[in-house]
C-alpha cells in the first residue's frame, strides 16, 4: 500500500497545527447530517489546519450576511476539544428562526462562513466539579454532549456523569446512538431518557427510559445521589424554570446548580401588539429610532458608533454601556457586578427599550 505524499502532508499539517486563538475565523463546512427530523449537525474545519481549543460547553458566534443585513447568531459547540481537529454545531429548525433555518436550508459541505469565539461561561472549566449531573431538553443537549464527550475521553472510567435528557419522542433524541455507545463503553456514564409524547420502545431498552417530565421521583430513580453532584442545566426556558423550581423545592444547594442562559431563552416580546412602538435612542450627539423589539446594540450599530460586541448573546460582557435616561428590559446581566448594575450598566446586546433611552458608551 502506498500513501500519496499529499495525503501524508495533510495529515502532518493537522498534526502540527496551532491552537485556535480567539479571533474571527473562517470555517468551512465538511459535512452535514440529520440528527432528528428537524435537527441537523454540521461539521467544520478551519481554512488552514488548526486545533480547536475551547472549554467544553462554550459557544461560537456566526456572522452572516443575509439579504444585505449582517446577522450574528451563537451556537454551542457540540464537539469536544478532546477531538480538536474539527468543530461541530447542531442546529434545530425553529419557526421564524431566520438564521437557523437559513443555515439548515443553505449550508452544505464546501461552503464557508465567518465565526467568532469561543465564548461562554457555561463550561466545565469555569464551573469545575467532581461529580456531574447533566439535565437537558431538546436542543439544549448540545453543551452536555460536548462536556460528556470531553469527560469520557479525558477521564475514562473516572468520569462520573449522570446525564438525564428530555425529548418529545424517541426520534427527537439528538445524538441517540452516540449517547447509547457512550453509556455502553463507560461505566462512569449513566444515561437516562425522558420522553414526553410516547412510551419508550424496546430500542431504548439499554438506557433507563421513562415517559413523562422530570420530577422528583424520576430524579431520585435516575440520580439517587443528586445531592452530591454539580448540576448543569440547558434547554428551553420552560424546562429550565421547572428544573430550578424542582431543585429549590428539594433544598438543593443552589451554588452547585448552573444553567446555560443563552440561545434557548424565548424572545422577549411581552405581547405581540407592542412591536409597533418606536423609541428614540440617543448617544452623545446622535440619535436614532428603535423598535421595541430591537436591541440597544442594533441602534448603536445603526449609528455606526464604536462598540465591541463579541458574543452578542449576553455572555461576554464586551458591549456593556450605561443607561443615563429611560428604561430598558434586559435578558442578561452576565459579567456585570452589582455596583455596575446599580450604576445603570446594561449589556447592549441583551437590552431592549421600554421608553426613549439615552446611553453613555
Amino acid at each position, binding site marked *: 500500500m502506498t500513501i500519496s505524499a499529499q495525503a501524508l502532508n495533510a495529515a502532518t499539517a493537522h498534526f502540527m497545527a496551532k491552537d485556535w486563538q480567539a479571533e474571527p475565523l473562517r470555517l468551512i463546512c465538511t459535512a452535514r447530517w440529520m440528527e432528528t427530523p428537524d435537527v441537523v449537525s454540521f461539521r467544520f474545519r478551519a481554512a488552514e489546519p488548526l486545533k480547536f481549543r475551547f472549554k467544553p460547553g462554550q459557544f461560537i458566534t456566526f456572522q452572516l450576511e443575509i*439579504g444585505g443585513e449582517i446577522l450574528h447568531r451563537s451556537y454551542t459547540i457540540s464537539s469536544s476539544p478532546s477531538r480538536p481537529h474539527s468543530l461541530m454545531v447542531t442546529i434545530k429548525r425553529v419557526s421564524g428562526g431566520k438564521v437557523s433555518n*437559513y443555515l439548515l436550508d*443553505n449550508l452544505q459541505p464546501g461552503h464557508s462562513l465567518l465565526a467568532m469565539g469561543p465564548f461562554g461561561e457555561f463550561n466545565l472549566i469555569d464551573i469545575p466539579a467532581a461529580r456531574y449531573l447533566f439535565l437537558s431538553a431538546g436542543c439544549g443537549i448540545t453543551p452536555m454532549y460536548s462536556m460528556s464527550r470531553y469527560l469520557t475521553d479525558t477521564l475514562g472510567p473516572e468520569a462520573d456523569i449522570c446525564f438525564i435528557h428530555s425529548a418529545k419522542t424517541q426520534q427527537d433524541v439528538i445524538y441517540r446512538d452516540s449517547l447509547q455507545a457512550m453509556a455502553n463503553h463507560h461505566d462512569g456514564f449513566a444515561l437516562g431518557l425522558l420522553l414526553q409524547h410516547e412510551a419508550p420502545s424496546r430500542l431504548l431498552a439499554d438506557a433507563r427510559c421513562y415517559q413523562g417530565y422530570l420530577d422528583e421521583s424520576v430524579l431520585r430513580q435516575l440520580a439517587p445521589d443528586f445531592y452530591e453532584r454539580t448540576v448543569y442545566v440547558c434547554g428551553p426556558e420552560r424546562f429550565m424554570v421547572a428544573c430550578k423550581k424542582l431543585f429549590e423545592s428539594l433544598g438543593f444547594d443552589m451554588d452547585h446548580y448552573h444553567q446555560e442562559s443563552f440561545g434557548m431563552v424565548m424572545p422577549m416580546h411581552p405581547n405581540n401588539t407592542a412591536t409597533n412602538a418606536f423609541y428614540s435612542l440617543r448617544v452623545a450627539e446622535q440619535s436614532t429610532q428603535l423598535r421595541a423589539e430591537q436591541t440597544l446594540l442594533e441602534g448603536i450599530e445603526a449609528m455606526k458608533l464604536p462598540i465591541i460586541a463579541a458574543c452578542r448573546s449576553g455572555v461576554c460582557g464586551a458591549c456593556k454601556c450605561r443607561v443615563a435616561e429611560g428604561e430598558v428590559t434586559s435578558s442578561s446581566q452576565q459579567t456585570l457586578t452589582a455596583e455596575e448594575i446599580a450604576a445603570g450598566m446594561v449589556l447592549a446586546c441583551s437590552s431592549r427599550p421600554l421608553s426613549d433611552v439615552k446611553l453613555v458608551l
Partner: protein
Amino acid sequence: MFCIQCEQTIRTPAGNGCSYSQGMCGKLASTSDLQDLLIYMLQGVSLYAARLRPFGIIDTEVDTFVPKAFFSTLTNVNFDDERIVEYARTAAALRERLQTQYQSLCSESGIAVETFPAAATLLLATTKPELLAQAKQALPNRGEVNEDILGLRLLCLYGLKGAAAYMEHARVLGQTSSDVAGKFHEIMGFLATDSEDADKLFSTAMDIGQLNYQVMAMLDSGETAAFGHPEPTQVNTKPVKGKAILVSGHDMKDLELILQQTQDKGINVYTHGEMLPALAYPQLKKYPHLVGNYGSAWQNQQQEFANFPGAVVMTSNCIINPNVGHYADRIFTRSIVGWPGVCHLEGDDFGPVIDKALALEGFKYDEIPHLITIGFARNALMNAAPAVVENVKNGSIRHFFLVGGCDGDKAERSYFTDFAKAAPKDSVILTLGCGKYKFNKLEFGDINGIPRLLDIGQCNDAYSAIQLALALSEVFECSVNELPLSLVLSWFEQKAIVILLTLLSLGVKNIRTGPTPPAFLTPNLLNILEEKFGLRNVSTVAEDLDCILGAA
C-alpha cells in the same frame, strides 16, 4: 460647470445644480464643461443630419456616433477629459462632412441654405483652455431664461440623453432604425435652438417618450433575438471559490464575449448591478462558469469592487471613482465609459481582463449560497398571465405594485425597502432596474404559486412591464389606468427620466416617484405634471399605501 441632471445634484436655497469645481458625482468642472461642449457639437451634427434626411441622405456613421457620444455624458459614465475632447473632435469632423453635403445639395437644387443655431457653426478650438472657454456658450442653462422654460429644456435634454443610451444599447445588438435616428436628430437639433415655446418643449418631451418606447422595443427584440427570452431562474448571490471576473453595466454582448473567452480557463464570471438579469437569458445562462451575481447596486461599488478579488469590467453606467477603493488597476472600461488612468478596452478582445483575473487571487472559499429568483421578463410574465388573471379574479391578488428604477445612496431611499416590506400579502411586486437591490434579497413568499416578487429585468425592461399592463388591460377590458396597478418609481439619472417620459406619453397616470423630485423641475412644472398626469412624489409608506389601496 452647471450640471443638474441627476438626483444627487446640489440643492441649496440659493439654487439647485452642481456649479462649483466638482459635481457631487465626482465629475470635475472641466469634464462637465467639456461634456456640455460635446453635446453642443453633437446638436450641430444632428441639425445637419435632420436637414439631409429629406434629401434621402442617411449617414449611418453619424446615426451611430451621435447617440453613442451623447451617452458618454450620462451620469457616472465618462470622467475622462481626453476621451470627451476626442468625441467632440469626431463630432466636428462629422458635422463638417454633413455641412458640406448639405451646402452642395442646396446649391445643386437651388434651395436657400437655412440659418442654423450657433451649434451648427461653432468652430471647435484646439487647446483645452480654449475649449473650456468655448464651453461657456454650451452650458445647459445658457442665456437669460425663465426657470420653467429652462426646466422643460432640461427635461427634454436629459430625457433624450436617456433615449440615446438605449439606442446605443440596441445598436450593439444590431438593432437600428433609420426612422428612430431621424426623429432623434430632429429633436436633438431642436434642442440647439434654445426654444422658449413651453408648449413645443412639452410636446417634445412627450415625443421623446414615444421615441424611447420604440427604442425599448428595439432593445427588447435585440436582446431576445441574441440571447433568447429570459426564463425564471434561481441565481446565487454569494461568491464561489475560484478566480473571478465581475461584469457590470448593461451590455450583455460584452458579457457574452467574456463568457466565450473565459471558457475552460478556470475563471468564474459574476454579474453586478444592472447585469444581474443576464443570468436569466438562455444563451448566457448556458455557460456554467457564469456563476451568479456579486454585490448590489452601483452606489456600493467602491466597497464591493474593493472586496472583489478579481477583475472588474464596466460595460456602461455607472462607474464611480475607483481610486477610493484602490482597484483602479483591475477595473476596465468599455465603449463610452471612461475614468482617467483606467484601462479602456476597444474591440472584442478581453485578454487583458482575463490575464488580470488569472493574476489575482480570486475567491478562496465557497460562501453559503443565497438564491434569488429572476427572469420574469415579457415572455415569462405572459406565460404566467393566465394564472395571474385567475388569482386576480378569485380575489387572491388584490393589487400589483411596480417598484423599481434606479438605486442611489440617499438615506430616504429606505422608502423603497419599507414599501416593499409593507405591501400587503395579497399584492404582487414587480421590479426592474437597480432599484430592486433595495429589497430583492428579502423573502416575499408566493400567492398560490405565483412569487410575490417578480424581477422583470434591467431598467429598459420597463418595456416588458408595459406589455404586461397592456395585456392585463385587454383581459380585464379596462384601461391601464383602471388596473389594480400602481407604479412607484425611484429615479437617479437620465435613463429613469426617459422611462418616465415614455410612461407619461403612453398616458399612464398616478405614478409616484422618489425619493425626491428632479431638481431641474420647478414647482410650476411639478404642479403641471401632477395636474396632467397625477404624477407626484412619494410621501410616507403608510400614507401612500393607504392612498393607493384605499382608492383601489
